[in-house]
């Protein structure tokens, strides 16, 4: 049971990250390949503040998320107005720097020996892991709700316009650079929050957790599910992490001598799935969803009736 709660909690973190990536890449068109870097700032920031500085867990998470936001803002100032490849390379480099710093700054992070122990909040309750999973669920639901709001809002429409043709959007008076910068910084800060919330899940932090495989897992999930669909992140994480890491690894009756092959088999399946999606459904399983807006259907009839009254 505890293991299932742990797996589901981890899956929620993945869904949250993929949801934020949906905002960054699916809506605003920013190819962030440094997901693990911002998540890692949250993870290790929370860990260091909690273990070394004795800050309580929740304030530590908040501070670490703010740090991730601030660093994302600075990075955005430096690279966000460059082209896609430059952003991709810079964010990937950022994540590498974070993981290298975690290894080298032993006094703070414990280096390769690790950092711990980070306890769950409400640590005297027996159901603390379940309570924490519910907290994660609330955060992830809030993220999904906010990105649905964003899709239906004027800001979301501006982001889509920036993604489609930034120069044209700017020529219509949109401050595209500032909008992108703030959306990037805030969503990266929320990735940091998810990192902070991952700290008590892992309890013991090691630099291995900051490998780029997290970034790729989130990207694969989002591309499979549908980068332009608000629920693409959920579907994508279910068919990757949910299917392989939870269902097959935990419940499939695989003989022990073959079990060691499972991770490789998983990667193989990811690869095949990805190729098939890109060939047959390039927009992902769910495709793209349109803003759900009430206003547009009501106006035209009123408009026409007004005109006819005036003429009459």
């Amino acid at each position, binding site marked *: 049971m505890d293991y299932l709660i742990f797996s589901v909690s981890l899956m929620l973190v993945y869904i949250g990250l993929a949801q934020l990536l949906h905002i960054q890449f699916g809506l605003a068109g920013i190819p962030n390949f440094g997901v693990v870097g911002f998540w890692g700032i949250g993870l290790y920031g929370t860990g260091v503040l909690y273990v070394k500085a004795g800050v309580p867990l929740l304030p530590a998470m908040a501070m670490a998320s703010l740090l991730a936001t601030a660093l994302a803002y600075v990075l955005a100032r430096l690279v966000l107005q460059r082209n896609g490849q430059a952003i991709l390379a810079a964010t990937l480099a950022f994540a590498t720097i974070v993981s290298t710093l975690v290894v080298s700054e032993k006094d703070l992070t414990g280096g390769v020996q690790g950092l711990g122990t980070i306890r769950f909040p409400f640590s005297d309750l027996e159901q603390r892991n379940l309570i924490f999973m519910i907290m994660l669920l609330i955060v992830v639901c809030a993220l999904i709700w906010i990105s649905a709001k964003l899709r239906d809002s004027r800001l979301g429409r501006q982001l889509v316009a920036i993604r*489609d043709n930034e*120069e*044209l959007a*700017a*020529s219509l008076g949109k*401050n595209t650079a500032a909008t992108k910068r703030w959306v990037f910084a805030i969503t990266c800060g929320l990735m940091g929050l998810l990192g902070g919330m991952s700290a008590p899940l892992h309890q013991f932090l090691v630099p291995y957790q900051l490998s780029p495989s997290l970034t790729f897992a989130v990207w694969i999930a989002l591309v499979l599910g549908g980068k332009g669909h608000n629920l693409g992140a959920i579907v994508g994480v279910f068919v990757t992490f949910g299917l392989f890491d939870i269902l097959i690894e935990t419940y499939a009756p695989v003989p022990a001598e073959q079990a060691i092959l499972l991770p490789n088999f998983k990667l193989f399946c990811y690869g095949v799935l990805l190729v098939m999606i890109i060939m047959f459904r390039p927009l992902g399983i769910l495709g793209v969803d349109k803003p759900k807006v009430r*206003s547009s259907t009501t106006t035209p009839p009123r408009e026409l009736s007004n005109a006819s009254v005036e003429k009459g």
Partner: protein
Amino acid sequence: MRLEANNLTKAYHTQEVVNIEKVTFGSAGLEGLIGPNGAGKSTLMGLLTRRITPSSGTMKLHIEDKTHPLNPFHSHQVARIGLIKTNQRIQGFDSLTIRDSLRLAATPARAEGFKSLFSGQRDSEEVEEKVARLVEAFPFADRNGYAMSGGEKKLLDILRCLIAEPKLLLMDEPTAGLPEDITRSVMDMVREKVQAGAMRVVVVEHDLPLIWEYCEYVHFLSEGSILFEGAPEEVKANRVVAEKYMGV
């Protein structure tokens, strides 16, 4: 309303594309800018809207009592003070419908912040009305869908600029890619707005009959410099214009 450029130059490497001692737009209601291919017309438009950075020179926009120096501006700031340009190259926002594209242009930037996430209605009645009026006025194949043909995209590009209600509108070859009758109704709509005092317009065109018909004042640009300016009749009669452009 006066858009003024002084000693404006733009050079790519050693090739000078624009070199204008002084030019003023916006004194008359509807002005034309003509000149042969490669004269630097589009570059000049790009410079004035700050999409292109000048090599040297100053640009100023006088609106009412205020003078805005344009050199330190970004292109979105130029648009916000009321100087907007339609595009020669056909382009658009591929994921926005015709209506959404117009709504986007009609929405002022201050209404598009993070607060807009929590407003119940996306667009105000005022914006919806403006959009409906424009969409109904032109024969789009699918008024609730996307701009499909190049002509529709070109038309939408112009309408986006009109709905943003600029003080000075620069039109870069509005007839290129548009059917004759649509061009006429667009230009009639533009002239109506100009005569109502809502805005002033500069049209860059190769379609000379259109220039002679609609424009009150014409600038002639050749090899990067303004060689002649005047009323359409004077420009038509000018020897330099005839030699350099009309091939007489």
